[in-house]
């Protein structure tokens, strides 16, 4: 749980002689842990600086954080004045490719067709978060394994190593989200890529369907629950 870990490290570092400032969306955790200095950022979890690609906004957050270093004593918590809610942004508009090979499942076909867009994103940014379990070229094959789960095969016979289903979906989502951030026009709003992935892409719909199938077949919740945010059906 990140906020608890961040606040613990602040105590450890301050005890060693360093000065610290924590950015946290969970004020209650910072208060309960008596963290030396914290800026409460009312932003969606995962967006410490609030707005991706908005340099001015990020500098405003840093300025507020560094202002805490002028405080004569702590623990001290201040609140950044801007609130960003989970729906405070435009939906992600990212075109999906037409069907190319109708012999493939739509999600597998889609992932293959998006490879060039993924490659362009990687060439431009020279970074990727794919690689926890599979590489980018293996995304269509990984999705084909989820098709087999939906079609009735047991999850532990389709070729996803035991305990590695979440990291496989991490890689699939990174593939889609990284290319979408390059294809989409305009800012990337809070939770915009999550909504786009699960609501619009064939891959996201397939993973949700596989999750429902595993749930309905009595598979242990720890296997399927984290394939999508809690509360998604």
């Amino acid at each position, binding site marked *: 749980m990140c906020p608890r870990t961040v606040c613990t*490290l602040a105590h450890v570092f301050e005890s*060693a002689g360093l000065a610290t400032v924590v950015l946290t969306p969970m004020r209650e955790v910072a208060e309960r842990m008596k963290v030396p200095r914290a800026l409460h950022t009312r932003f969606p979890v995962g967006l*410490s600086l609030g707005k991706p690609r908005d340099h001015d906004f990020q500098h405003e957050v840093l300025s507020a954080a560094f202002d805490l270093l002028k405080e004569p004593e702590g623990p001290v918590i201040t609140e950044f004045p801007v609130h960003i809610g989970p729906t405070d942004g435009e939906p992600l508009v990212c075109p999906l490719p037409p069907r190319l090979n109708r012999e493939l499942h739509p999600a597998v076909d889609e992932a293959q067709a998006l490879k060039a867009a993924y490659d362009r994103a990687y060439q431009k940014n020279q970074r990727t978060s794919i690689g926890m379990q599979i590489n980018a070229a293996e995304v269509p094959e990984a999705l084909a394994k989820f098709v087999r789960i939906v079609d009735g095969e047991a999850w532990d016979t389709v070729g996803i190593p035991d305990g590695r289903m979440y990291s496989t979906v991490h890689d699939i989502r990174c593939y889609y989200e990284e290319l979408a951030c390059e294809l989409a026009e305009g800012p990337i709003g809070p939770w915009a890529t999550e909504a786009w992935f699960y609501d619009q892409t064939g891959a996201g719909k397939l993973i949700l369907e596989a999750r429902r199938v595993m749930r309905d077949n009595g598979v242990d919740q720890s296997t399927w629950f984290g394939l999508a945010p809690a509360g998604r059906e």
Partner: protein
Amino acid sequence: MSVFGKDEAAIGKFAASVPVPEFETTSFNTPNALSEARIAIVTTAALHQEGRAGFELGDDDYHFETLPRDARDLALGHHSVNFDRGGFAADINVVYPIDRLEELAKQGVIGGVADNHYAFAGNQSDTVSEIRLDSGPQCASNMLAEGVDVVLLTGT
């Protein structure tokens, strides 16, 4: 049912009830002026350079990764779906504001950017004793040896 990561009330309830370690006292160091301070980022977003093994799943990987100042080939090694992952995909600075620090150093607002920055996994044991007693102090020692004055901590 609402989606957890998007439900601010649910997150508030969680923050108020999640077990946290007790700290009897709070150390509090006053640094040099910001314009003279060397700053490092420590994030719990489980970042690592491409090609590194990164972090293990579960809550018992308490090691930290070193992120050299010039490294931008950074991967998010955190598989949780209950935070907004798209921000980092679009811009690493939304979690790890290294380019913003470089700009502040160039403007003279801060004294300097540390040569190395560090990443831990956010998911740790409930007692967080491993990072309190082992890897956290080691990371602090590294930063002190590198002349760091101020640590900016971010998470996901």
